[in-house]
């Protein structure tokens, strides 16, 4: 057997791979010395041992190269199991949400990206194009999550992910308040939306919301209904249950879909003809209101997606337990 193929060389090569560059030469020499000394000692103690066996025993006394390298670096060189699990779970959740958003955008008929290079509708052409798009989404999410993990790993790795996974205990009072708020919002959206978002037009006031935008109102009612169902189930069950969490998750998903539909409308604002503003002022106001709506829709979609993931995980935990 050649010297290159010896277990000692294999072990030292593995160790070299794991060590910081400035430590390699010194540690290699030290560890090789330890192996040779131990192998020699083993051979003297038990002459029946072959040199190869003695060397293997010496390597066993050093333990796995990974563990020795970790001890020498005084820091974990391998990714702990808890981190790996957290990464995989987060990746699954982020990827699923990203994909759902892209599907929702495609279904809603959006043709442009909501966030260029990151979030856009899935192509509706060939199977190959869809597959490529899904792979791209996966790679984007993996890369983004890696960046987040590296950044959080340098700060407080055990704290940051809790933002996403923190529990939201619900009380009877909270459920009643939630129902009242939802009722108010429903009345507002169904009865007074055009009156609130209005501009003076001659002697009267007219809504500046585009018809494209107003056509979404029935969809928001579905969202309200799901969240109301959540509160009612919480009240009936005197606390959270699998069903109430499911309703919340469904409401969050429907809400995020609504927000995406809002963000991808062709027209959100349309100034009524005959308004008293000048042409230029009307354009500025139009753009300003459109921008505000867009920000509200994008931020709302993100928050609701986070809520969907959180409630989905809480529901899965409940089912498992």
């Amino acid at each position, binding site marked *: 057997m050649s010297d290159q193929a010896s277990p000692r060389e294999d072990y030292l090569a593995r160790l070299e791979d794991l060590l910081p560059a400035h430590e390699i030469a010194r540690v290699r020499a*030290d560890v090789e010395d330890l192996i040779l000394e131990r192998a020699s000692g083993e051979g003297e103690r038990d002459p029946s041992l072959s040199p190869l066996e003695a060397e293997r025993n010496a390597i066993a006394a050093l333990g796995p190269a990974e563990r020795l390298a970790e001890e020498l670096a005084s820091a974990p060189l391998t990714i702990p199991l808890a981190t790996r699990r957290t990464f995989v779970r987060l990746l699954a959740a982020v990827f699923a949400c990203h994909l759902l958003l892209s599907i929702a955008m495609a279904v809603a008929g959006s043709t442009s990206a909501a966030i260029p290079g990151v979030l856009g509708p899935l192509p509706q052409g060939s199977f190959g194009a869809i597959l490529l798009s899904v792979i791209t989404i996966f790679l984007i999410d993996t890369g983004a999550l890696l960046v987040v993990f590296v950044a959080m790993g340098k700060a407080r790795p055990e704290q940051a992910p809790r933002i996403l996974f923190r529990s939201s205990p619900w009380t009877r009072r909270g459920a009643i308040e939630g129902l009242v708020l939802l009722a108010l919002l429903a009345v507002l959206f169904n009865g007074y939306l055009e009156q609130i978002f209005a501009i003076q037009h001659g002697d009267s006031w007219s809504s500046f919301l585009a018809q494209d935008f107003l056509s979404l109102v029935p969809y928001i009612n579905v969202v309200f209904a799901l969240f109301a169902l959540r509160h009612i189930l919480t009240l009936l069950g005197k606390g959270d249950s699998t069903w109430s969490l499911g309703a919340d998750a469904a409401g969050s998903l429907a809400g995020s879909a609504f927000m995406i539909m809002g963000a991808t409308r062709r027209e959100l604002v349309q100034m009524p003809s005959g308004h008293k503003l000048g042409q230029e002022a009307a354009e500025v106001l139009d753009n300003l209101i459109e921008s505000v709506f867009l920000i509200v829709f994008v931020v709302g979609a993100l928050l609701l997606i986070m809520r969907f993931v959180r409630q989905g995980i809480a529901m899965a935990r409940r089912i498992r337990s």
Partner: protein
Amino acid sequence: MASRVDPKFEAELRRGVVQLVALHFLETPRYGYDLVRLLGAAGFAIEEGTLYPILRRFEKQGVLTSRWDTEGTRPRKYYELSEEGRLRKNDMLKAWGEARDATDEALRQAKDAARSASTRETPEERQP
């Protein structure tokens, strides 16, 4: 009879003490395997994989000095306590003494407390 001591407890207990003992053995220059054998004979069986990171850390901290002896058939690395190491060894010895005394005292207090609690029991309470 097999020992009931949890191997992890034993390993953690020895991990700190073995450093102190190793520093005492390194008053005179010794190479790694020599130190492993000496520690083993003294009741502190330790593998190279555990000892070497300790030696390396001490070397980085200036507690140990090292030199390669190239006179023999094979180069051999010798470790020895530095001046800084001697001071460190004395401090560690002091800390070990304090920890040992504190442990003895805590165990004595626990034993006294158990004894006084058992003498407070009424004869009826002691009935099975």
